[in-house]
């Protein structure tokens, strides 16, 4: 098996005296969806920020294509093809689809100091990129992004990331604020991205959504990977139970705390 596109090996993160992440080891492979599950405060957002270069790990290694590199800044992550799409799409509600698609990399026409923004080309490329992902309702690049539905905005943001060469898509709760139908849209797009050979890190609360697209699941509890398993290894009930704080969650938490107390603050190896 080839090296994973993005891998974390024994990553720890503390903010001052507070340890947020403990010995996180995760692999993200091309054409696979890694679902990151966990309750609020489990450290999901910190983990995302480490993967996207916003935060630096206190210790541990980040590997890209099997080579240990750092991600000292968001720009470094972007250069390595890691793109993060946030809950509300990270788009600009009062800008047109074409303009927001090309923010920072505006296509121009003309020459010298008279280079002007090429509205038609920007609109055409943006609309085509979104339509290629199956969102056919978008056909006018002059529409304002704020007029799109939540799912369409997510789709636009994902299409944008893919268009600009993303290899790893980090989707931060893309379905959290969406209705059932809109969420289905986004899940279809996640599947499409997977089919195109992208690695996807999909952060969610909703087990249904995770089950629908995930190949590989990791459950975070108190900053440690409490469970790490592949598709089909656990039933929906078991995952829900893990996530929603059922009996096994409570026992796991107690177990982890006990283990960490007796093992110098190290968490137990994840259950398989």
């Amino acid at each position, binding site marked *: 098996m080839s090296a994973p596109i993005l891998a974390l090996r024994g990553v720890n993160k503390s903010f001052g005296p507070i340890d947020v992440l403990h010995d996180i080891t995760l692999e993200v492979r091309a054409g696979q969806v890694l679902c990151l599950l966990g309750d609020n405060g489990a450290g999901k957002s910190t983990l995302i920020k480490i993967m996207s270069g916003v935060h630096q790990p206190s210790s541990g290694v980040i590997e890209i294509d099997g080579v240990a590199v750092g991600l000292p800044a*968001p*720009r470094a992550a*972007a250069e390595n093809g890691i793109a*993060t799409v*946030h809950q509300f799409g*990270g*788009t*600009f*509600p*009062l*800008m047109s689809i074409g*303009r*927001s698609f*090309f*923010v*920072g*990399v*505006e296509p*121009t026409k003309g020459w010298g100091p008279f*280079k*002007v*923004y090429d509205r*038609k080309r920007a*609109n055409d490329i943006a609309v085509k990129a979104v339509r290629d992902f199956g969102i056919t309702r978008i*056909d*006018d690049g002059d*529409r*304002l992004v*704020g*007029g799109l539905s939540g799912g369409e905005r997510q789709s636009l943001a994902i299409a944008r990331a893919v268009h600009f060469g993303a290899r790893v898509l980090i989707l931060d709760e893309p379905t959290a604020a969406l209705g059932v139908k809109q969420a289905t849209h986004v899940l279809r797009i996640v599947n499409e991205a997977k089919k195109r050979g992208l690695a996807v890190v999909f952060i969610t609360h909703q087990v249904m959504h995770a089950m629908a697209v995930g190949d590989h699941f990791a459950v975070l509890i108190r900053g440690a990977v409490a469970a790490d398993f592949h598709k089909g290894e656990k039933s929906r009930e078991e995952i829900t139970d893990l996530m929603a704080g059922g009996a096994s969650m409570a026992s796991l938490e107690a177990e982890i705390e006990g283990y960490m107390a007796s093992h110098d603050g190290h968490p137990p190896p994840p259950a398989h």
Partner: protein
Amino acid sequence: MLSISFGGLLRRPEAGAALGLVAVLIFFAIFGGVTFLKPGGMASWLNVAANLGVIAIPLGLLMIAGELDISVGAMVPFGAMTVAVISGHYGLSIWLGVAVALSFGVIVGLVNGFLIIKTAVPSLIVTLGSLFAVQGIVLGLTVLITKSTSVALATEGPAKAIFGDFVMGGQLQVMVLWWMGLTALYIFFVHFSPFGNWIFAMGGDKVSARNAGIPTDRLTMILFVLSSTSAAFVGMCQAILYNSAQVAGGQSFIFNSIIAVVVGGVLLTGGFGSVVGIFFGTVTFAIVTQGIYYTDFDRNWSSLIIGVLLLGAVLMNNTFRHMALAYTPKKGGK
């Protein structure tokens, strides 16, 4: 692709400003006759609009980018006093006075921008501070140097013709030409060059803009430098035009330019607006303040009109913006 329709025009940011301008024109044409549209009358409001407009456009760009700069109110007398003290009181070259006045504008803009990007204190507070600080500097230094609060300045030659003279029959200030030229430049940079997109993106969502690779800090600095230098420029030109500078005055520019910008369709929270809209807003404002002289109304009523105009414009702009957001192209037979 580019179809001009009435609905399409209404969805543009300057729609409210254009309608407001038409309404104001009709109002004053009815009550004051058309005198204010004849050359003599036009000069009176064009002069006001030009001085205001040169400041209002960069201020409007700051507001589109989600910031605000009220220190322009102190930069106008600062620019005026700098050139008057250097070239009037000390009798040095007018060009030196011009250069120093403009560089003070750049410096204050850099300080404003630097404090805002480093401290994340809202720009209203930072520039409120610099407004008072600069006012103090102007008053303190002027009295210290000249023992007076008013300094005379006599300018001749090309500097007078370029910065502070009357053109076209002696009624129109040369500032009107500056205003027209600068407006054209701003329109190009904001709406046609790729950089304009960055300003809108920054006002729409600063974090996303930064993640998209836009140098938001540098852009913030540039915009603050632009607004305070423009204000210093206006003050400097006024001093050259009127052959004197006062330490007071200039505060009216703060509210007047914000009104012009908001009437012009710029969203106070950023991300939406246009240079043409600010242009219309400025003209509308100038016509209201000057047009009142051509009617039988007491001029004291002009503030009432401006207040009503501002509220009306904001409500109208909100409506138009919602129309723009809700717009979906119609498909034939749904």
